[in-house]
């Protein structure tokens, strides 16, 4: 094994997506020395860069609007479970951050008079969503933030470093331990505050829009560090996920922005419109909320009216070739490379795991229940309740990232004395070395175990759930984390050993997976993105937020009424 690496900072940020990079900029401008780590490449991995279009911001450029109206729509989409203070922070903060990004050369699409274009996405009462053409909103935000963080002398960026444990001493953050992926060296990081910006966990589902790195590790890190998580059972299944024909070079979410721009008709396997069967309007407009649309598509397939690959059809055949070209620009060429001609054929779609509404419980300083531990972006729970409004993920990343950077920098300045203790860190360092040496035996690879987990989560903890499937999932996941994980065989190579990284991904990710199944089993109702076949309606008794935490290695749960 190579020698350990020791580094230090005031504020450590784990995850270099939109939230992490914005947090780095904000922490540095509030006087902190910042270390920004990413398991992959800073500014290249994560979810923000995948975001194609909608970013909600009450700028009022297309029509009169206000953060208050944006908040009303957010709370309505959240089906009663939003933390209103966090949702208000998101809506109030979005215009400032969007204009700040414009100053950093994010080229928001504009009309001829120079005003920023704003379009209406499902669930919004106003034309509110800004975007960058063509379908490159997230990529443009990431490019600006990569540029910003790389020029800041107070931000040190390190790519290919994964964090495996938080070091907590006397209940407070003292640092973290991780692995330098290209060399497999253990990394010890002394710091006064940590911001988790590791995104969501939807990689753990068979059908997913997630990057390969979104395995819920931040949830596992936070839980083992003593933090509470909130409403983790709510995972958004994006209704318009690409299903067939096979398409590469483009995110499977691509039909959502296409529908927001152009409309598009949903048809069952017989070529007939079906939304009216669920109380929604047929036709080319796109107004149906995500949770309702997901429900309708599942029910059509269940009723035997699905398309050949087990989804429904989405057709743009009524839209002219020129209009398609104007709206989609070079994206049309990507369709062509995949032999998809939208003027001649529909595509098949089916819901796909997309976004984690719940997460680490934070206050409006983005502070968790563990002093010194902060969370921002998708991993922060509360703002989105039971169902996220379309377009709220990007403002959540940049607004919460900025907020966490500022508050963590202030916290670190107030807690200058290091709490680092080599003795507290040593068990975490030892584990890295010990797991790297598990090269014998005939156990499965970590990739195989993750593959099993993806099938399990999709089939038993997916968009429609029931008690027996959830209980079976809980039992299997617990066995994976308490037994199977110890028998996994790690490849012996030292350089860029992905199987070592994947083992730690599973160790933390399995906790996140078990949390979802545990939380979903306890919530005996259907609400927003959490749908129970055995409890098909919402129940006022569960107009409550569910908190989970680890108590001697097992999950504990508690519901608290909203506004109580």
């Amino acid at each position, binding site marked *: 094994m190579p020698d350990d*690496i020791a580094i230090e900072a005031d504020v450590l940020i784990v995850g270099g997506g939109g939230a992490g990079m914005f947090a780095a900029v904000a922490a540095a401008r509030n006087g902190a020395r910042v270390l920004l780590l990413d398991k*992959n*490449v*800073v500014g*290249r*991995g*994560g979810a923000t*860069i*995948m975001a194609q279009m909608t970013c909600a911001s009450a700028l009022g450029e297309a029509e009169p609007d206000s953060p208050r109206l944006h908040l009303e729509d957010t709370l309505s989409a959240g089906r009663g479970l939003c933390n209103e203070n966090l949702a208000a922070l998101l809506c109030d903060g979005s215009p400032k951050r969007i204009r700040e990004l414009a100053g950093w050369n994010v080229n928001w699409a504009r009309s001829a008079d120079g005003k920023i274009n704003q379009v209406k996405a499902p669930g919004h009462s106003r034309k509110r969503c800004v975007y960058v053409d063509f379908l490159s909103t*997230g*990529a443009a935000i990431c490019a600006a933030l990569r540029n910003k963080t*790389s020029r800041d002398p107070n931000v*040190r*960026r*390190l*790519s*290919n470093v994964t964090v495996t444990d938080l070091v907590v001493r006397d209940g407070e953050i003292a640092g973290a331990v991780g692995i*330098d992926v*290209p060399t497999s060296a253990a990394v010890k990081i002394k710091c006064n505050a940590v911001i988790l910006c590791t995104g969501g966990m939807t990689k753990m589902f068979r*059908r997913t829009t997630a*990057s*390969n*790195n979104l395995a819920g590790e931040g949830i596992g890190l936070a839980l083992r560090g003593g933090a509470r998580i909130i409403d983790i059972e709510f995972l958004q299944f994006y209704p318009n996920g690409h*299903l*067939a*024909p*096979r*398409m*590469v*070079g*483009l*995110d499977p979410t691509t039909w959502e922005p296409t529908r927001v721009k152009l409309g598009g008709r949903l048809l069952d396997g017989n070529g007939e419109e079906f939304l009216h069967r669920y109380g929604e309007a047929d036709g080319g407009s796109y107004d149906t909320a995500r949770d309702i649309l997901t429900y309708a598509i599942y029910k059509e397939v269940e009723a035997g009216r699905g398309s*050949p*690959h*087990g*989804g429904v059809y989405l057709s743009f055949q009524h839209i002219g070739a020129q209009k398609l070209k104007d709206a989609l620009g070079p994206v049309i060429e990507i369709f062509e*490379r*995949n*032999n998809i001609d939208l003027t001649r054929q529909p595509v098949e779609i*089916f819901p796909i795991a997309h976004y984690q509404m719940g997460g680490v419980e934070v206050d409006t300083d983005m502070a968790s229940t563990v002093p010194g531990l902060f969370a921002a972006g998708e991993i922060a729970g509360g703002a989105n309740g039971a169902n996220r409004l379309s377009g709220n993920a990007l403002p959540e990343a940049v607004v919460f990232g900025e907020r966490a950077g500022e508050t963590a920098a202030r916290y670190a300045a107030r807690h200058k004395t290091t709490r680092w203790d080599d003795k507290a860190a040593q068990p975490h360092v030892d584990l890295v070395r010990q797991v790297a040496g598990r090269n014998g035996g005939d156990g499965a*690879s*970590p*990739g*195989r175990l993750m*593959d099993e987990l993806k099938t399990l989560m999709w089939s038993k903890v997916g968009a429609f759930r029931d008690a027996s499937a959830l209980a079976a999932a809980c039992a299997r996941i617990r066995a994976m984390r308490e037994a199977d994980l110890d028998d996994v065989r790690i*490849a*012996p*190579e030292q*350089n*860029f*050993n*992905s*199987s070592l990284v994947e083992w730690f991904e599973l160790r933390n990710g399995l906790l996140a997976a078990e949390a979802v199944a545990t939380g979903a089993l306890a919530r005996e109702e259907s609400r927003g993105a959490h749908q129970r076949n055995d409890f098909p309606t919402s129940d006022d008794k569960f107009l409550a937020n569910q908190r989970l935490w680890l108590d001697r290695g097992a999950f504990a749960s508690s519901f608290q009424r909203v506004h109580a």
Partner: protein
Amino acid sequence: MASAQDHPCKTARLRIWRGTDRDQGRYDEYDVAFEDGDSVLDGLVRIRLKDDPSLAVRFSCFNANVCRECTMLIDGKVEYACIAKLQPRLIQLDPLPNLPIVRDLVTDTLSRKERF
């Protein structure tokens, strides 16, 4: 639900450079089942899952062509593995030239200041 894993119908043979030193590498060959439209990256992920978890390959966005991390030489040309399509024939994969090798298909593409 149908997917490539469920209904592979064709076979590609991937000839992959392995090693940590350009002068002492070797080629390993793997047969990969695929359906029309699957990417070279799909094939590499299947090899890591089914045949050899030690194979080193860099990617994060998985077939969306936004992270731009999966560049390599495919039959001698610089391409993204996530948009190059599998074909029912022998395809040779090498690490990018003129960059330090980390291992197998992973080269050190990172900015110097982003490393220790």
